[in-house]
């Protein structure tokens, strides 16, 4: 029997049982809609999170911290030679060490403001590591060789929300109060004042990453070393040429130090892990959605078994006039396949439709808090999830629908094909 004829007969038989065909197809539509909807929405969400993380982290930057999270963070600090060794690794563009001095206050005679961290940096190197972060509202980077200049972060300069008058502008003289730990005559801390000239003030930047310059002030490293009388530093920032190499370079840096002496924050690894987690969540959601398609498959098996029972006599007639068992099998499988094809096609379209509706709704719901903490950007943008159309998923989901329908249609179709013609003709 010609395939086109089998198709035509299957279609004819289905169109005579419109409601049944509609409901069976609907169950497939629901399954595929759920799979495609969740897949495209999930991918959109994953890409949005990834993009946000990429803008938050400088992916080609590594942060080297003394000590290990596993073995307890160390009080040890880095020396100049550590930085030199790191700089020599191939693929490293620049390595720069910083000293971090916590809880400092700045005063201009009229007003006092606090900074989260005063970071002592080698400006020339530091700007190479964070080239995009130094957008000045006023002033510019300190001139090389000047030891008495300071760069002020936005939230230090404007500590209150919606403030319009800055604490300082370029060329202002300010007093920086640092807490000094003295061991003699007994361990205690003392406050010391130092006068700095404001080289520049930074624009509002914000970042979802781990360093938010809005809350920092920057002073020259040499001066800090002089004040604290030390050659040690707290952190090393490393910029690599190729971000894909960042993990290999991190391993090489790790090899330079004894085990558990340092921790390296590799944004790429972090992003990959988050990406993996999101992929797993996405697959998990799709797996749940797939269950609905399996339920649809069981529905198809049920309906088709009923259909075979109803059409026993018809099958008997067809066999009596010469239809082979495999022709009967193909006829019933074709009906199952047609349900899969229709359900799959409609489901794919509805799935993408659903993902756009959900994306619109969810984008409104996922409105980030406007808190101004050191780790959360006060300027976090509204989350906009754009569903992603994937040809691969479309094909896979469509094929899944057809295959599920054929598999679940196999039992009733075989039942029909195996019918004894004499018994079938006698069936009332």
């Amino acid at each position, binding site marked *: *029997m*010609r395939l086109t*004829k089998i198709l035509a*007969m299957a279609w*004819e*038989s289905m169109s*005579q049982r419109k409601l049944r065909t509609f409901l069976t197809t609907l169950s497939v539509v629901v399954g595929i809609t759920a799979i495609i909807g969740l897949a495209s929405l999930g991918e959109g969400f994953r890409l949005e999170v990834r993009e946000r993380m990429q803008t938050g982290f400088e992916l080609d930057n590594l942060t080297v911290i003394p000590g290990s999270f596993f073995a307890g963070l160390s009080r040890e600090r880095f020396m100049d030679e550590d930085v030199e060794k790191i700089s020599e690794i191939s693929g490293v563009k620049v390595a720069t060490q910083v000293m971090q001095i916590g809880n400092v206050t700045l005063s201009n005679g009229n007003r006092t403001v606090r900074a989260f961290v005063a970071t002592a940096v080698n400006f020339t190197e530091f700007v190479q590591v964070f080239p995009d972060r130094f957008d000045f509202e006023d002033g510019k980077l300190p001139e090389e060789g000047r030891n008495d200049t300071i760069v002020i972060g936005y939230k230090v300069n404007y500590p209150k929300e919606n403030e319009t008058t800055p604490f300082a502008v370029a060329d202002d003289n300010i007093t920086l109060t640092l807490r000094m730990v003295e061991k003699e005559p007994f361990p205690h801390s003392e406050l010391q004042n130092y006068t700095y000239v404001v080289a520049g003030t930074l624009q509002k930047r914000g970042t979802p990453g781990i360093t938010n310059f809005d809350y920092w002030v920057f002073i020259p490293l040499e001066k800090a070393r002089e004040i604290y009388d030390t050659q040690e530093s707290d952190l090393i920032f490393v910029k690599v040429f190729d971000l894909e190499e960042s993990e290999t370079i991190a391993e090489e840096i790790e090899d330079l130090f004894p085990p558990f002496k340092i921790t390296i924050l590799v944004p790429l690894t972090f992003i990959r892990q988050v990406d993996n987690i999101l992929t797993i969540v996405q697959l998990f959601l799709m797996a749940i959605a797939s269950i609905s398609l399996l339920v649809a498959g069981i529905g198809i098996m049920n309906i088709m078994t009923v259909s075979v029972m109803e059409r026993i*006599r*018809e099958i*008997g*007639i*067809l*066999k*009596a*006039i*010469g*239809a*082979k*068992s*495999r*022709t009967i099998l193909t006829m019933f499988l074709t009906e199952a396949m047609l349900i899969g094809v229709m359900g799959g096609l409609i489901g794919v379209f509805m799935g993408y439709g659903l993902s756009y509706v959900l994306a619109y709704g969810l984008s409104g719901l996922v409105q980030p808090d406007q808190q101004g903490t050191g780790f959360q950007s006060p300027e976090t943008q509204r989350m906009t999830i754009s569903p992603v159309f994937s040809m691969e998923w479309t094909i896979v989901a469509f094929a899944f629908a057809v295959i599920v329908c054929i598999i679940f249609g196999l039992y009733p179709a075989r039942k029909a094909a195996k019918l*004894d*013609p*004499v018994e079938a*003709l006698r069936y009332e």
Partner: protein
Amino acid sequence: MVTIVEVRELEKNYRMGKILVPALRGVSFDVEEGELLTIFGPSGSGKSTLLHLMGCLDRPDGGEILVDDSDVFKLGDDELAEIRLTKMGFVFQFFNLLPRLTALRNVELPLTIAGVSEKESLKRAEELLELVGLEDRMGHRPSELSGGEQQRVAMARALINDPEIVLADEPTGNLDTKTGWEIVQLVKKLNREKRQTFVVVTHDEHIAEAADRTIHLKDGLIDRVKEAVGRKQ
């Protein structure tokens, strides 16, 4: 005369629970080309069983049926289906038309199964519906046709593959006397004009009277064979 089917020592039993009920107990006869053979007998004599076996719809417990000198029951199910499709035509007591198809589509169905092009099969189906006098009922579904008309459609369907033999199981059994008589006339006409071989299982005296030969079955055995007067040997 050419023998087209040879039935040899055919046996068939049915199991009713633990009891084995013999339906046929060694039946032998030949079917000659172009003859109208009726199989006559009371209910339970094994008529329909014999017809089903001759039509390759069932398999016997013993004996053989030779078509073209080979035992059909040595063939697989698909090959039996092929024999049904190419060499046999069936007419049933309850017409057995597909209710969702029109008369025309019902008639062309065997050709559709055989993979003949739609154009050709429709042309042939139209010719046959004209032959059985239903040229103006082609587009009607079985539910829109009378019993006699449905049986004519079934007759046309049985003939569409140019079968060597048409097997009819009580073709008038579900029709009133007048309509039954019309069907008998149609069978006679096709037999005489087209030299179509018929094997008809019947209770109907009219068909038996028109037959070249009548095999009387009783309790699964041939009781007697009655040949029409003047039948050519």
